[in-house]
């Protein structure tokens, strides 16, 4: 099957879609099904949504002669995760009306709505646009939401980098007018046939494309897990440029060694004003040379490995018309968020809340959605979604802190400082019941498993340790599992592949140690390793580093260059 040189069928779908129009308009008008035509479900990703269904009741509904309970996940494009209180209030209102009264903070610093039914899809997307946000290119074979470090300490630097991330997000947008026609009822532009995508072309990229900006020493964005990473370089406290890293990516498939996770390779450095050009031409090389015959071999990481890093740099520099500068050594120390109030270098305050698995939904004992709604009504700074599925209430005047604390207290929210480090560092993707790819539970299961792991750590006197556990319902890797110290990757209901040995800062891949473990097997495995770690660690030695050093695992191949 791999010997064929025929294009993946989706390439033809894209080409025939008239720049992403497909039959979306007709599909939205068909009230007899909650689904869209199959091709439109794929084109829909470029518009920012995935068709899903409630898998908990899929079998029940089949017996009831009802189609699956289809709904849509709608993802916002919001570079660097920054939004204003006014925007927050709009998103909150849409979530209450159309999204089951829940918002989901993602691992790429944005919001997802889940459970939006087809008849509400247009109103939801239109509402997001009315808040001066959008959903275009939040998914699909294009550049996705651009990440930017949410670290609040060095406020001026953070802002400078975020501004570049936001500018790049705009620069890499698709130019098709389809989005505005379909969702915002804008007029079909005259001579629509002549419409063009100067950067992407009619078939866009072979696969998704992810960009992140990191500010050392914090690697909260997991910069090396992206197709293209910019690592900020600082001279005299000012942004002087970036290391450029390419070819990171998490997605793989179980049992298919030709698919693999890869950390990005650093190929040089550029100046701040060169960022747009570098990104545009990295995209261009991938557009022209990425594998369009096999979607499982289409990310930039495979292009890079098939042709070599030197070839890629050469092709890139030829297109740029200048050579990249030599990369500068940088040090990352951690990825997790620092919870609680922190003061920025400008005297403003920032409060990072712990939102377990990024799920904002009110329950009997905690009401994060309501709390943040009230805060948005009084807050005059901004909100920042962190890459760890948390939210920072940013730029608070010292006098306003008490008001925010009072609101949080009324709604049963803590700032996360009382929660164990293993829990605040954990991440889970959404998985069941809505994600069509999930093979096992993730978001709904991880909190209970963490409770059991907390007990194991306590048993070995490791209670405060901050090891990062990441769970996903399938091997595609939305919670970036493959560079975590402990990764649990869903294989079947109740069963996970266990990977161990990532590092604290996201610069080393972990290794597969158990193909198919249920909860008892996971806990037994960790129990053994925790015992050894407690007994044999060097002072302060992190779990993953210990496992590798002690030879309990073979060191993972392919770290960042």
């Amino acid at each position: 099957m791999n010997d064929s040189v025929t294009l993946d069928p989706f390439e033809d779908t894209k080409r025939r879609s008239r720049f992403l129009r497909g039959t979306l308009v007709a599909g939205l008008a068909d009230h007899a099904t909650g689904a869209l035509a199959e091709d439109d479900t794929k084109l829909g990703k470029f518009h920012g949504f995935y068709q899903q269904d409630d898998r908990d009741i899929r079998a029940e509904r089949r017996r009831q002669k009802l189609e699956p309970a289809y709904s849509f996940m709608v993802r916002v494009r919001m570079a660097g995760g920054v939004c204003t209180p006014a925007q927050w209030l709009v998103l909150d209102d849409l979530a209450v009306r159309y999204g089951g009264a829940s918002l989901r903070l993602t691992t790429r610093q944005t919001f997802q709505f889940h459970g939006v039914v087809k008849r509400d899809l247009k109103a939801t997307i239109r509402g997001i646009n009315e808040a001066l946000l959008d959903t275009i290119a939040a998914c699909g074979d294009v550049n996705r939401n651009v990440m930017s470090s949410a670290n609040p300490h060095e406020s001026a630097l953070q802002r400078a980098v975020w501004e570049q991330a936001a500018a790049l997000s705009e620069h890499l947008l698709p130019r098709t007018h389809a989005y505005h026609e379909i969702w915002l009822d804008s007029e079909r532009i005259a001579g629509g046939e002549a419409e063009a995508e100067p950067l992407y072309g009619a078939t866009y990229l072979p696969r998704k494309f992810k960009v992140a900006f990191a500010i050392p020493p914090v690697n909260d964005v997991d910069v090396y897990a992206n197709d293209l990473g910019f690592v900020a370089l600082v001279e005299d406290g000012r942004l002087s440029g970036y290391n450029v890293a390419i070819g990171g990516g998490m997605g793989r498939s179980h049992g298919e060694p030709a698919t693999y996770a890869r950390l990005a390779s650093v190929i040089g450095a550029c100046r701040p004003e060169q960022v747009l050009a570098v990104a545009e031409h990295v995209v261009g090389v991938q557009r022209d040379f990425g594998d369009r015959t096999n979607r499982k071999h289409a990310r930039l990481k495979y292009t890079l490995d098939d042709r070599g890093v030197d070839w890629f740099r050469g092709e890139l520099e030829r297109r740029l018309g200048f050579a990249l500068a030599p990369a500068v050594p940088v040090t990352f120390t951690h990825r997790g968020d620092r919870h609680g109030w922190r003061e920025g270098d400008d005297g403003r305050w920032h409060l990072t809340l712990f939102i377990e698995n990024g799920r904002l939904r009110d329950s009997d004992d905690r009401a994060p959605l309501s709390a943040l709604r009230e805060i948005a009504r009084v807050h005059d700074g901004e909100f920042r979604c962190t890459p760890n599925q948390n939210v920072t209430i940013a730029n608070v005047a010292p006098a306003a802190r008490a008001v925010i604390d009072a609101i949080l207290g009324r709604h049963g929210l803590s700032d996360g400082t009382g929660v164990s480090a293993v829990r605040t560092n954990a991440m889970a993707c959404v998985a069941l019941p809505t994600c069509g790819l999930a093979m096992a539970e993730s978001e709904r299961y991880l909190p209970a498993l963490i409770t059991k792991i907390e007990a194991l750590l306590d048993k070995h006197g490791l209670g405060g340790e901050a090891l990062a556990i990441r769970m996903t319902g399938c091997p595609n890797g939305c919670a970036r599992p493959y560079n975590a110290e402990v990764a649990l990757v869903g294989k079947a209901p109740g069963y996970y592949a266990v990977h161990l040995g990532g590092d604290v800062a996201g610069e080393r891949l972990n290794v597969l140690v158990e193909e198919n473990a249920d909860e008892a097997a996971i806990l037994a495995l960790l129990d053994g390793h925790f015992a050894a770690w407690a007994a044999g660690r060097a002072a302060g030695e992190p779990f993953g580093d210990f496992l590798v050093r002690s030879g309990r695992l073979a060191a993972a191949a392919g770290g960042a260059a």
Partner: protein
Amino acid sequence: MQQSAALLSEPAALTPEQSSRVHAALAGLSAPQLQWVSGYAQGLAAGRTALAEDGAQAVTGPAAVVAPLAAAPREQAVLHILFGSQTGNGRALATGLEAEARAAGLAVKLQSLGELRTAELKRLRHAVFVVSTHGDGEPPDDALEFHEHVMGARAPRLPALKYAVLALGDSSYAQFCQTGRELDERLAALGATRLVARVECDVDYETPAAAWRAAVLDIARRELGSEVPAGNPPQLRALPVTPRYSRAHPGRAELVANQRITGRGSSKDVRHIELALGDGALRYEPGDALGVVVRNDPALVEEILALLALDGEQPVATPAGERALRDALVCDYEITTASRGFVEAWAALGDHAELGARLAPAERDTCARWLAGRQLADILHASPARVDAAGFLATLRGLKPRLYSIASSLAANPDEVHLTVGVVDFTVDGHRRQGVASSYLAERAGDTLEVYVETNPRFRLPVDDDVPIVMVGPGTGVAPFRAFLQERAARGARGRNWLVFGDRTFRDDFLYQLEWLRYRESGLLTRLDVAFSRDQANKVYVQDRLREAGAELYAWLEEGAHFYVCGDASRMAGDVDTTLGEVIATHGGLSAERAGEYVARLRRDGRYLRDVY
């Protein structure tokens, strides 16, 4: 000979020549043989004898006569390629095999297991299955229903089936290739014959799968060739005696399926009921209704006995003879519906000023609405009276069978009848009240029910299969249209079909949604319009959809379409009728009066047919 004498004495029925030929043919036949001929003729009349199915069962016993039939087309020797696929690998393999088999000149049919109707299984002769295993030994989603059916107790024997199984899986899972293994072994256990041994494939399936495909093709070429089987024998089919079951003499049917078809969020419980007509004696046409002999809920009987302080064991006289009061209340008397007649009789038994006031002639409508929201026992609670058993029974009506529009076609479901039953279940003053028939069917009926067919010749498909039809059936009113569409599909009718359905919510109340969508995809259903009243701020009903599609509706009528309405008589049928007139006036450019004449002509021509209740 009484039967034939009666038949032949009807002068208009036969010419003298025909009459003498029939006499000659019938001479010397025994009584059971004559009875059989009668049934055969009836079957012929119903136009049901043209096709004999493979594997039709022979009738045994005294009435077992085998009737020669006109040569029936035998199913072309087809290789069925069926796949259950989660990730698409199974589908891709099956599609590849299909191409190879076609290239080899074989007749092939490729289908997802999700598309294979369970009834079709026993008609398969040569079938190969490509089926993956998902998760921890689970079938892929599209094969779930098929798997449940074939593994279940109701799976048919399959002695005529030759098959092969390619199992796909991932050996890192404990239950490697479980679904393929189960299927392969189960088919053998059901009497089917393996064409080639099962092959199990791991993640790197290409090589073993290719070998299996080659083996299957090789044997399929030999088995199926491209020739029609030699010496196609005359098709014989036994026609059973057809006693005429009636309300007085109901037949027996077996309850084989009782499935809720509203979603978990629905405010309503609607059941899809399937009954098996074991002896083939019940015959019906799409449009007919099924009478179901019902029993009252014993718990309700006990509640009433306690309320009235009556001994359930005391013998009482009933039209069916003497029996215990308890049994009489279960089997013979209407004790759920609170009719005006009952209230009048009950009011007369005691000093019930309140009841009397409700019965005032001026309050007739108010009283009817009040009664619609309660049952007989609620009246007993609210207005107690002392009465003996005979006195109580004297206030009651006899328990009548309940009628349901039949939701199936015999052509599509031989020996089955399907019903769509809305379960009536509500609470009055803290007492749970259920509809007698719906709760009987949904919860209390045993395996066997007593039923009969209530023919409804005024609600029939057009005789001409090319005539388009428009069907308006909100709620359980959609039932007969399921029968219509099944029948038209089975007949290969080419007339266009337009269904308008409505209910409360799209998500949970779209009765038979999957079937309509499948019909639309196959082209049988030309147009499908839906109205869900509670999914938006303003209520939308079927008549609103008809109005929106007025131009097209008028065009269909002008092209000769029949217009059918089934369901609620109290409001829907009238609203649809009004809308029909408006649509004709608007799009036909007619005055209200002329439009009224147009509608009247539709009625007269038998093109505007209603089954409303």
